[in-house]
């Protein structure tokens, strides 16, 4: 990889275009992978740096959106693997999490309403092992099963199965017990 002195205008332009289109998405993605605010900012900056560097060798074989998601998730996955190496942490699959308790119990500090639902959803995502977390985050970002499959290297059918399970887990977590469940 070249340093900043070997940048091209094309690389800068692609990066700037990507940050305009996906800036908020990348921030949400970093939230899915890191709960601590300081480390989240580090992770986000790491993702941006990797993205800018990656555009030096963007070959157009996939769309810029797929490229951005792959770089971002791969950096974030490395971050999770490195953190687990230093601080072992139990992560679960979508199948296992359905049988477990809610990772985010009611927090009196958190306001009622969507904010609490969002906190519970974020905790659910952060408790997932990387392969399932990638699919779930891409689904939450609104990607179709085929697009998720392209980013993740899975068949659309496998992605659809995972999304079906996710919806079931969410239904179980958020619908059972009504407004007092959280």
């Amino acid at each position, binding site marked *: 990889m070249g340093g*900043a002195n070997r940048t091209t205008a094309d690389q800068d332009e692609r990066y700037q275009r990507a940050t305009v289109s996906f800036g908020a998405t990348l921030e949400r993605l970093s939230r899915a992978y890191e709960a601590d605010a300081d480390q989240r900012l580090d992770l986000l900056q790491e993702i941006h740096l990797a993205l800018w560097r990656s555009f030096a060798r963007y070959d157009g074989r996939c769309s810029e959106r797929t490229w951005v998601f*792959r770089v971002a998730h791969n950096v974030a996955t490395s971050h999770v693997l490195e953190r687990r190496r230093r601080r072992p942490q139990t992560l679960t699959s979508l199948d296992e999490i359905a049988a477990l308790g809610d990772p985010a119990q009611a927090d009196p500090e958190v306001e009622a*309403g969507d904010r609490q639902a969002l906190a519970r959803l974020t905790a659910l995502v952060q408790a997932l092992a990387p392969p399932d977390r990638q699919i779930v985050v891409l689904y939450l970002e609104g990607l179709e099963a085929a697009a998720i499959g392209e*980013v993740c290297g899975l068949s659309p059918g496998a992605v659809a199965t995972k999304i079906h399970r996710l919806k079931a887990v969410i239904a179980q977590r958020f619908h059972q017990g009504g407004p007092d469940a959280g």
Partner: protein
Amino acid sequence: MPADPSKLDPQKLWQSQPKEFDPMTLAAIHEKARTFQTKVRRRNAIEYVAGAVGMLAFVPAVLQRDSWLMQAGGALIILAMVFILWQLHRRASARTVPEASQSLADFHRGELIRQRDAIRSVGAWYIAPVVPGMALLLIGRWFQSHAPGRSIGIDHLIILLGALIAVLVLLVIWLVNQRGAERLQRRIDAL
């Protein structure tokens, strides 16, 4: 919880998150890239200096005139350390930037396999290279060089103890890494 949980739209909820950080400017990215390059160069320099200091420890063995076996052993260990440094550098530089052309499943599996292979093969690239030099050093010391003012029996006992400690250290390094490789294999199997 929303007033009516059945109307909860997880996608809408997820995408409604407020922005937390200011966007990074291009100038900030360029600066971060320069800092990153400087860090990599500094890390490499520290590794090379540490390696050079380690090698210097074996220079007396090469320069002494009592035992040609010890000279050869010292030289082999210095060569082994050069090889190990090259391996560390090669393996560290392989993970600097995740490959964007890889799908997430391939990347995740690839990262785990890379880590597993690196520590599983530690015997081949970290332990084995130093064994011939160490063996020659000990043999040379046993047959061709003796500490002055010490009986042969005591001198041989000290050499044996030194050899035993070296073997134990290498064995522990190997065992710890094999355990780590088994843990990674279980995670690969679970994918």
